[in-house]
Structures are given as C-alpha cells and as structure tokens.
C-alpha cells in the first residue's frame, strides 16, 4: 500500500533574527505513505520540529516558509488560504506536541477542549458521548468523571492522552507527534508510545514521529529520515538504516548510544552542530566528520540514491565501511559539546 498521503518537496523555513536569517529547514523533501510510520530523527536545532510545524502551517511570524510545497491528499498546504488550512488541520493533519501542559488550554475543561474539535452542528449530547468514547480509547480511567477536569488536575501522561483524544476527534489521516514522550517518565513513555501505535492501526492513520531516541525508532517505525542542520542527510527503511548507515552523522549517532555490549566503545561525535545562520556551501557536517575531504567543503552535496530506497547526502559513501582515516577531533584537546 505505497500510496503517498503526504509529499514534502524542497521545503525551506527561514526565521529572521537580529543576528541574521536562521535557515531552520533547508530544502527538505520526503513522502509519507498511507498508514505508514515515519520518523524524523535529529538533535535539537536539526530542523525536525520546524519541518513538522511547516507541514501543519504553524510557523510563527516572523518565521516563514520560504519555499517548497507540502502536498497532502492532492492539495498544496503551503499555498492554501488560511480558512481552508484550518479545515485540513482539523480533519486531515493533526499535531501533538512535546509538552501537553502548554498545548492544552488551562481554563477549559477536558470536555470543552474535545468537543471544540468535534464537527459543529452535532447535538451536544452526542458530542458528550463522543468525548467519553475518545477518552476511553486513549485509556483514561473513569472518563465520565475526567470530562470536567482541567489540565492542571491531570498527570503528565494523562495530559498527553487527552491531547491524543483531541487530535483523534476528527479522525485525521496523518498524525504528527513531536517528541510526544520526551517530557514523561520511562514507563509512561512506553505506555504512550504503545497507545499511539495502537491508535494508528485502529484509525488507519499515517504517523510522523519526531524523536531523538534511536531505540524507539529501531523498534517501532517503518522508515527514517535523519536530519542535520536543516537538511535530511539520510533516508531509508529502518532495518536498512541501522544495518547499513550510509552517512557519517548517522554512523555517529548510532555509535553515541550506549549498547548492551560494554566492550563496544562509544564513538561520540566531537564538536558541535553548525551555526544555523552562516553556512558555507559544502556539507555542514564536514567540520565534525572523520571522512571529510576538501571536496566536501567546496560544493553543495546532493541527497543521492545509495541503495534501494536509500538516500544519503555524502560523497564518501564507498569509503564508510573502512575505519575513518583520522579521528574527527581529539576528545581531550579542542572542546566539543
């Protein structure tokens, strides 16, 4: 069932600041298929959240979408008038955020916030039943009583469940989840993630999961896009990506996670992500990369196919299997992080 539901093409997001323009998203392209679980992976500042916000049209001024298109079910959301966009946002694409406390309205009850999203014109009694049903679906115990609760009366996990209930009220075809479990405790994280994946199947939704947790990606998603400095640097099916990473940054990320094997040394990436204002033309990862050559800095590196359904923004793909020619930077001397 490889029918694309979302096609993002050459998306660019810019945010003017006093220091200059921050190029938060720099030409991001990918597609998400109907019912698929897709992950955007990257560290803070990599542009993964901004990409999602651009998809749902939630870039706050003075930030703006500077180019590209976001085609959802045949409509380009970037060019859609705001009124139509609101309609799409309600029933087509929804986003849940990292911090449900700030995303929920503190002065409205749970019931008010869910019914607000339900289609208008339905009788209030019906709406109440729907709200109860939704709360039950997201695993809120005693939903009738919870209808009258306010956000501050709920625990972090329950707030995220209520967020999901609101998101699901209009039966969206695509759910964007921006680090939905980061603010939660470990066992609650697992609950919410499991719930999201169950609901995704139940509702037949596509899911874009924004995360920095490679373990979660490994165990639960179909395809992965790795982002660095506002670009997708690698895109592949999950199993393929972990078995044969074809970008030094991906290799670095995987090597940064402590593994079960204590004999396997950690191979941290040294240095820091680049300044998002002042870019050279070349690969933004080159200063931290052990394989980098002069060629990497000289020209723009395109995202190129390196295997079946596998793309990488690296010109040294063939050399990555051998050990790096030099350590990226000495861990002791010049400081990183």
């Amino acid at each position, binding site marked *: 069932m490889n029918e694309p539901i979302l096609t993002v093409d050459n998306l660019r997001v810019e945010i003017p600041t006093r220091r200059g323009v921050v190029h938060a998203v720099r030409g991001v392209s990918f597609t998400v298929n109907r019912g698929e679980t897709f992950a955007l992976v990257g560290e803070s500042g990599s542009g993964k959240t901004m990409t999602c916000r651009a998809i749902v049209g939630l870039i706050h001024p003075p930030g703006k979408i500077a180019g590209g298109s976001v085609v959802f079910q045949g409509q380009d959301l970037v060019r859609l008038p705001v009124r139509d966009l609101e309609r799409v946002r309600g029933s087509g694409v929804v986003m849940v955020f990292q911090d449900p406390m700030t995303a929920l309205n503190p002065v409205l009850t749970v019931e008010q916030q869910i019914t607000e999203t339900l289609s208008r014109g339905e009788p209030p009694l019906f709406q109440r039943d729907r709200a109860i049903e939704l709360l039950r679906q997201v695993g809120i115990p005693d939903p009738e009583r919870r209808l009258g609760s306010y956000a501050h009366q709920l625990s972090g996990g329950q707030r995220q469940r209520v967020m999901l209930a609101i998101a699901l009220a209009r039966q969206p075809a695509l759910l964007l989840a921006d680090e939905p479990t980061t603010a939660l405790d470990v066992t609650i994280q697992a609950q919410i993630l499991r719930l999201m994946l169950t609901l995704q199947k139940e509702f037949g939704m596509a899911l874009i999961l924004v995360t920095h947790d*490679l373990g979660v990606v490994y165990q639960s998603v179909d395809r992965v896009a790795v982002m660095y400095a506002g670009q997708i640097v690698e895109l592949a099916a999950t199993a393929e990506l972990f078995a044969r990473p074809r970008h030094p940054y991906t290799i670095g990320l995987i090597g940064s996670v402590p*593994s079960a094997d204590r004999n396997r040394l*950690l191979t*941290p*990436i040294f240095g820091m992500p680049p300044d998002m204002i002042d870019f050279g033309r070349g690969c933004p990862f080159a200063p931290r990369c052990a394989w980098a050559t002069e060629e990497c800095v000289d020209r723009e590196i395109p995202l190129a196919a390196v295997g079946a359904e596998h793309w990488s923004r690296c010109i040294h793909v063939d050399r990555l299997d051998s050990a790096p020619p030099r350590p990226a930077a000495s861990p002791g001397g010049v400081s*990183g992080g």
Partner: protein
Amino acid sequence: MAEPLLSVRNLVKHFPLPHGVIDAILRRPPERVRAVDDVSFTVERGKTLGLVGESGCGKSTLGRCILRLYDADAGEVRYDGVDLMGLDDAGLAPYRKRMQVVFQDPYSSLNPRQSVGKMLLEVLDVHGIGTAGERHRRVIHLLTQVGLRPTDAQKYPGEFSGGQRQRLGIARALAVEPELLIADEPLSALDVSIQAQILQLLLDLRASLGLTMIFISHDLRVVRYLSDDVAVMYLGKIVEQAPTADLFARPQHPYTLALLSAMPEVGGVSREAIAVEGEPPSAVHVPPGCRFHPRCPWNVARCVEEEPELKELLPRHAVACHVAEDRLA
C-alpha cells in the same frame, strides 16, 4: 574483602508537607513525602553503582543525603568507616572534599555572574588547596582535563553550550580531587551526541583518577554501560540490586522488567513486554504491602498485605518481590 568506601544503612528521609491550622482543627494527621524509605547499600572503592528509577523515586534525595546536603531522618551513612550523620559542619568539612556531586542542569548550578576561572579558584580557596600560583595552574589543568581550553577561564557560564557547561560542572567537582563522585542525571539535559561525549569523559576520568562513582539516572542503557552494580529504586525503596551483567541477564523484579521493556534498544531483540499500567502513586500515599502492587502484572493477595523485604535470592542479587521469591525458592 576491604571495607567499602561508602556504606549506607537503613537510610530514611521524609519531607513533611505543610500542615496548616485548618488541618489541625480537622485533626488531619500531618502528611509526609516518603522520599527515601529504609535504603541500604554499599559501594566499594573504585567501583560504580548505578542508581536507577523514575522521577520521584527518591534517587536524587538519596544522593543528597549521602552528601549531607539533606539531613536524613534515620539510618547511617558510613564513609571510609566514619559515620557522617554524627559529624558537625567542621567535622564534615574534610569529607565534603572527598565527595563531590555533578548535577543534571549545569546551568542552574553555575553562578552566571562569575567567570569560570574565578569560580574554580574560589572552590580551591574554600578548601585551602595549594598556593595562589599553584591554584592558577590547577585551574588551567582542570579545564584541559575536561576538554575545555585554558582561555575559557575568562568566560562566563552563559557563553558555553549545554555540553560545555556540564564539562564545567565536572571540572568544579574534580577541583578538590574527590574520591567519590555522585553524578545526578548528568546527561539528561543534553543531546544524544553530546551525551556520548560527556559519558566518555566521565569514563576517561574515572579510569585516570580512580574515582568511585554513584551514577544516578533514569536511563538503564547508560547505567548498564558504566556501572559495576545497579540498584533499581521505586517509591523510596530499592526493589532490586545486583551486579550489572547479572541484573540485565536475569532481571527478577517486575518493575525492573518493565523498565527494561520500556527502553527499546538499537540492535536489541525486543523483550517480552511487561506492560505496567497506571502511573507511580505519590510518595505521600504509599500503597500498603508492596509499593508496586497497584501497577504490577503479577500482583497476588500477599502483595497487598505484606511488604516484601529486599532479600538475596540469587548470589549477590537481591530482590524485593514475593512472587520472585516463591519462584526462585
């Protein structure tokens, strides 16, 4: 076997909740947060103990009680044979030098108006380490030791990134050449690639300085990577404790199993998921019997009635669970 560097016995720390006039009139009993509730463990010289649990389980309070940043209500903290609980401030001073802490949020634990060099000099000054000239050299040495530049001494904390600030936090802790380093979630505020840098730094320093460590974290993956022993805490109590390899190969407590299955691993086989329902209860209203029973998939009648003791059910492997005990008997 030599005497352990640190030995904690039956440590208790409760925080009283505000008890107002109305509560008194209504004769409500005063309530307390039972942050640490009868915890015992030892750490041998040169070893690292990983202390794992979710927020509110008391792992940070425990760390602070050991340092006497909090005064425990009961129990004993023996450091190198001396009971720290009985010491006054003056008596404690030498031990404050031998134990240091690195906090989670390096920014809030640094003074924004003090340059890094001054901050480190002050630490050396307070503890009376070296002459003025030696102190300056020591500051430079500390900065390079944690991977910063000597010129960074002139900068203020605000000029550093999160990872660099954590390096500063570590430099400050190392300034007094401690034997025991308590690291309280030192990686949580950092990005993945930066986490690995700091983790590697801690490993290098541990090896070169022969540090004894207590590593407090919610992340079992990190704890597995660097600990010799692991203690899993839940609501103020240790529920399982074992040498690291053993704990991960043969986890016994359902809460440990739940934590493990909640942490998907790259390349790991997905474990049989132990789904834990509900959320941790508050440490004010601790459930009777086993504290974990309301969320436990194994819950039997005895769990509600009787609190399980932490018992050595396998060699050096202690578990507080009735069901595990019956199974292993």
